[in-house]
């Protein structure tokens, strides 16, 4: 029996959902708000909400002091590059796991996921030393490789779940209809998997964009992305909340806008298979 949803219940549900939504969004909202305050109002007690003198001063200071463009370029290259490289490796992997599984496929998938449970700091030294030897320290290529490796389990898992949802009979029908393996991939599988590939791409760009541990530890100046840009405002000269907020806003703005425009895609991607 369908659960009866009364009017009152609907109102409560909506209110609770909005409440939680606002709660989650509040830190971002506060950061953006603070970025328009003067340093004095930023630390005012009690905090002021809207009735302060709005200023763009923090932004001009930040722009003057750091080369935002360079950090942004690095972020785009590192997030985009690691995601594309990851997809190129993960598609065939997920493909074979979904359509030609072996008795060990499940174990391999779980093992891949288990590597995500390893504390990253546990392998920092070996990787740091390897990077020095190989001349990858503070290079974009190095970060592309590391972030790709970190997110690969998630990419493979997501694509695997997507491919699993494609009924085998459809592929067999294509084979009966005379499609070669190449034609099967081009005309049947890829068009059917495009929503899945797209949301995997999006999610991994976001994950790579926000990744701070490796990007902070393996870069100095040349390859530093926006995470390093934020970090550079956090400590050296004491805390300047307004400027830190301005830098943070500038760092998260691109990904926030990307997320906003693709939220439908993201939600359907993350809940794929959960509901029919």
């Amino acid at each position: 029996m369908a659960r009866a949803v009364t009017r009152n219940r609907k109102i409560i549900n909506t209110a609770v959902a909005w409440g939680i939504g606002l709660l989650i969004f509040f830190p971002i909202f506060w950061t953006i708000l603070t970025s328009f305050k003067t340093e004095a109002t930023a630390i005012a007690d009690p905090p002021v909400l809207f009735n302060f003198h709005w200023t763009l001063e923090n932004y001009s200071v930040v722009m003057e002091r750091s080369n935002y463009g360079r950090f942004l370029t690095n972020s785009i290259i590192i997030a985009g590059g690691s995601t594309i490289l990851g997809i190129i490796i993960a598609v065939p992997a997920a493909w074979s796991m979904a359509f030609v599984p072996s008795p060990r496929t499940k174990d391999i998938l779980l093992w891949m996921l288990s590597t995500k449970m390893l504390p990253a700091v546990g392998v920092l030294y070996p990787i740091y030393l390897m990077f020095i030897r190989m001349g990858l320290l503070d290079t974009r290529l190095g970060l592309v490789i590391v972030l790709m490796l970190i997110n690969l389990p998630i990419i493979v898992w997501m694509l695997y779940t997507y491919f699993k949802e494609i009924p085998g009979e459809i592929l067999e029908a294509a084979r009966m209809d005379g499609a070669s393996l190449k034609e099967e991939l081009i005309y049947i599988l890829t068009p059917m998997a495009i929503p899945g590939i797209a949301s995997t791409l999006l999610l991994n760009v976001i994950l790579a964009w926000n990744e701070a541990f490796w990007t902070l530890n393996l870069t100095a100046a040349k390859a530093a992305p926006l995470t390093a840009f934020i970090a550079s405002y956090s400590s050296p000269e004491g805390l300047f909340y307004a400027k830190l907020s301005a830098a943070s806003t500038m760092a998260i703005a691109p990904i926030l806008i990307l997320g906003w425009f693709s939220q439908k895609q993201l939600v359907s991607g993350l809940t794929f298979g959960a509901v029919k």
Partner: protein
Amino acid sequence: MGRITLDKVRKAFGDIEVIPPLDLTIEDGEFVVFVGPSGCGKSTLLRLIAGLEDVSGGQIRIDREDATELPPAKRGLAMVFQSYALYPHMSVRKNIAFPMKMAGVPHDEQERRIASAAKALNLTDYLDRKPGQLSGGQRQRVAIGRAIVREPAAFLFDEPLSNLDAALRVGMRLEISELHKRLATTMIYVTHDQVEAMTMADKIVVLQAGRIEQVGTPLELYNTPRNKFVAGFIGSPKMNLIEGDAATQHGATTIGIRPEHIGISAESGLWEGVVGVSEHLGSDTFFHVKVEAVGAEPLTVRASGEVSLKYGDRVFLSPDMKNLHKFGADGLRI
């Protein structure tokens, strides 16, 4: 042409042999139904013929040519799947055109064949829709349309009607039979539903545990089942199978008698029993009668039209001895 010969074809998955070596010939233009309980290997056999599974031994010939190693597309067979297996991102037109596109059929010819298939299957108004916008019956028609346009040597149907509701199933059954009469192309049809098998087939192949139990026309199987399994499987409601003294009297381990070959009367007869559940269908009534003399299982008896007998009534049954089936200890017909 579509003559299909299986010569000692066998299939094993790892150590488990699902189809022991098996011989079968399907003549050109025949409507052959593979029927059997689930897990009997009928779908596997169809997939072996289609080339979707590799044989573990033996040879498959299509029109005298060895097709054992040919990929599915090269065998000239078209398949209709249980789930329809339509391409969800393509319109009905593109779905039907897909096999012709793969085969490089000229565009004009493609259009001509699509139009004629759509007309035959009542799909003309739906050609620009996506499969998701169609009903189950329409989807099944699209799947059949996609098979027809290839002009295959034989059609393979894998339980094509089991996803449809009962009323639609009867309609589609007739449509497929009609299609077979019109095209006169070989059709192999897999089902677990013996009513479908009886109504559609020229020839029925009854399978159990990968073995062929009997091959014959529907009436041959009905009138002279080769063994106890076929006797119990073909016919609805099932044949009454009786063991024990009642059977030994006739020199058999098991005797079988169909529900319509037992007379029921309130006055006299060979066996005395008590009426249990009755099923009233209007044209027929099926009584389940418990008879002490023949064992614990109630016998099913068919009476024409309405017969006024109630639960618990005492009745007499008279089996028609001319239509008695006798089976020996090995289950085979005597």
